[in-house]
């Protein structure tokens, strides 16, 4: 499992953070930079995490893998493949993403509503803090409620609270059977059917409507998948569809108009928004290509209890949905406590933190 490229380079990372602390130099934490289009621009010295790489430990019967932040996701997937296991939340790789970037962005793939998100699989982390310390939180066990859950807090925090140098993740066996189908259904009826199927013990592990057809992935034992296939019918679909969806390789994602990610309650009906939409996560995530005004999109989202993220870099000042004032104050407090010198990715998430 160990490779020549494996290297514990945490001392160098720690040294660079300590230097930055001394001079209050902002740091732009960067792995493969595959998600540079997300969030606000950060002016700062690059802290390149890619040299700190390699799988530290992996015992398939413990269902836990521990890897350094610079490890490419492809390397993680390869190790898991060999043991017939997987990271069920399907983080997108966007070509060459690293483990650190996966945690920082917290992005999850098509299986997310049924399996949980990246944060749900985080068991423990090592973090370089804004006090210049290299600390360990959580661990390699499934259940651990000692102290505050700083490990899961790191997921999706875009590096503004510290540098995650290592992470332990829960993994699971791959399903015995996997089969994908596509059905002729309009989006309104598709959402109704998904709400109905969601209340039944069907082995659905992905559901996406591209405007024309509903695509479904079935995963489980031989018996349940065959029975569900018989019941739902439809045409067989190549499983590479889900990778293309996850990696934004479907033609829908060919950029013309600005791309927005809408996260909303799964049973929200079809939204009347200008532009084109693609429904993923069984209704809970929708992709919108639209020239519509930011305020308009955010208002529609607020009405349905969701939020919108702009995926086109530099289009709007705050790509992530702005927070209510009180909540923002506690975000600032937390940032101030964990990164008092304000050196970690300042402004990446919000201008205020």
């Amino acid at each position, binding site marked *: 499992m160990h490779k020549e490229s494996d290297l514990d380079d945490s001392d160098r990372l720690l040294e660079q953070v300590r230097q930055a602390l001394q001079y209050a130099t902002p740091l732009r934490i960067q792995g493969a930079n595959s998600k540079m289009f997300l969030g606000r621009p950060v002016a700062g010295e690059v802290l390149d995490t890619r040299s700190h790489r390699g799988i530290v430990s992996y*015992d*398939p*019967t*413990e*269902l*836990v893998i521990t890897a350094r932040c610079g490890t490419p996701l492809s390397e993680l997937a390869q190790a898991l493949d060999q043991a017939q296991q997987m990271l069920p939340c399907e983080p997108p790789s966007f070509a060459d993403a690293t483990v650190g970037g996966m945690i920082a962005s*917290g992005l999850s793939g098509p299986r997310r509503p049924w399996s*949980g998100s990246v944060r*749900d699989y985080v068991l423990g982390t090592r973090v370089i803090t804004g*006090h210049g*310390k290299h*600390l360990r*939180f959580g*661990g390699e*066990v*499934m*259940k*651990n*409620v*000692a*102290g*505050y*859950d*700083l490990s*899961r*807090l790191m*997921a999706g925090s875009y590096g503004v*609270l510290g540098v995650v140098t290592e992470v332990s993740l829960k993994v*699971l*066996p*791959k399903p*015995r059977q996997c089969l994908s189908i596509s059905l002729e259904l309009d989006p309104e009826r598709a959402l109704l059917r998904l*709400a*109905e199927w*969601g*209340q*039944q*013990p069907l082995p659905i592990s992905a559901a996406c409507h591209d405007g024309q057809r509903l695509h479904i992935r079935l995963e*489980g034992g*031989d*018996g*349940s998948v*065959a*029975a569900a296939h018989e019941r739902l019918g439809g045409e067989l679909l190549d499983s590479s569809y889900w990778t293309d969806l996850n990696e934004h390789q479907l033609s829908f994602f060919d950029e013309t108009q600005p791309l927005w990610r809408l*996260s909303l*309650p*799964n*049973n929200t009906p079809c939204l009347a928004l200008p532009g084109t939409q693609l429904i993923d996560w069984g209704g809970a*995530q929708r992709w919108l290509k639209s020239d519509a005004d930011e305020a308009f999109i955010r208002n529609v989202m607020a009405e349905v*209890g*969701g*939020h919108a993220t702009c995926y086109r870099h530099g289009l709007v000042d705050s790509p992530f949905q*702005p927070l209510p004032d009180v*909540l923002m104050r*506690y975000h600032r*407090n937390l940032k101030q*406590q*964990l990164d008092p010198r304000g050196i970690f990715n300042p402004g990446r*998430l*919000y201008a205020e933190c």
Partner: protein
Amino acid sequence: MNILYDERVDGILPDVDLALLLHTLQARLPGLEVLHQREELKPYECDGLSAYRTTPLLVVLPRHLDEVQGVLQICHELRVPVVPRGAGTGLSGGALPLEKGVLLVMARFNNILHIDAAARTARVQPGVRNLAISQAAAPFGLYYAPDPSSQIACSIGGNVAENAGGVHCLKYGLTVHNLLKVEVLTVEGEHLTLGSDALDSPGFDLLALFTGSEGMLGVITEVTVKLLPKPQTAKVLLAAFDCVEKAGRAVGDIIAAGIIPGGLEMMDNLAIRAAEDFIHAGYPVDAEAILLCELDGVEADVHDDCNRVRQVLEQAGATEVRQAKDEAERVRFWAGRKNAFPAVGRLSPDYYCMDGTIPRRELPGVLQAIAALSAEYNLRVANVFHAGDGNMHPLILFDANQPGELDRAEALGGKILELCVKVGGSITGEHGVGREKINQMCAQFNSDELTLFHAVKAAFDPGGLLNPGKNIPTLHRCAEFGAMHVHMGRLPFPELERF
């Protein structure tokens, strides 16, 4: 070292003018029920960790959210510590009152506000019992997955505060994995919504941070949980082993075969005999260990997996493998396990339940070490174990009426937890730190890590008025505790003064 709040090492608490506090509460919140007579306070002096008791200054039992907000605002103005409490079933003393603090009881918020079958969610008040959610969801074919043993009595607000587990965690996750949104009031009485009705929300994942924070960061006033469709069927296999190591290895073998059971539990001989005596579950009393393996899901898959697991168990050296022949026998098999604690309670006047977790591969060594410690401290230990997720519940048997036995039981418990930390595990899998494991936190985390925890606390409660003394020890407590546990000639936290 005593775990009751000790101002010398846990921090000075502000002195409270009781008459002024009482007057202010009654004047500004005339409808609020306040208990202040000695005999009224008595029932609230402990939670599920009944070996430790403190009479609270006052107990308040609000019925309306504006009363909760009012209590928090008044206590904040007058600098009075507040200890939140749900159903009071917690096993780590997370709701242990303070002599100088108000006990804020949320149990009266017991309404299920909305079950949304299409969205598969339930929005409930914090005092709703865990089991009541599944009961309310049952007509829709849905249920709430986390099932702590106390689910008949424990409330969802407490479940969130403790990140409660149960016997189905390996497959269905902990409380944190089954939440969408919580409404909280901060120490100042400000309202925050954490999470949302969508699967994620913008900003930091404060929902994850608050889950398991033991009432230290805010008071939970409403919870939206995810519901799951009920599995079509569930089957249980019972396997007997003539040695504990073989049973431990069988657990790894089941997972290596690509199977994630709904529940996977292990009991040792002392626990088996106690449970059998009490419940008559049909357990083999001469076995050194048994495994209970529950497989749930769609009928056809469960049938196939039962056959696979049976084969794995036989190859792992099980002396007997039995499948519950009907639902009644399945319930009986589980009843033995779910009643293991009270069953062991019948063997001894008192027992002390531990909650350490370990990587599963360490199980044989840890069980041997526990047996050795049991002999050294001359106290019996029964072992029940959430084998699937490495969460051990050693039960230390003792008699509190025998001078010194409680101290010995605590010392033995402390050793077991330190052992868990040493092999890469944790001092608590699901019961929480509370006050019970406050000293062992010093073994799990170093002073820099504890300092960062205190920084998190300061972001939400800089005055330290919410549930002071729980969950995270002060560095002074660790210094004091460390003074009694000098490791290899090195004193932990040498920079701190000793008391």
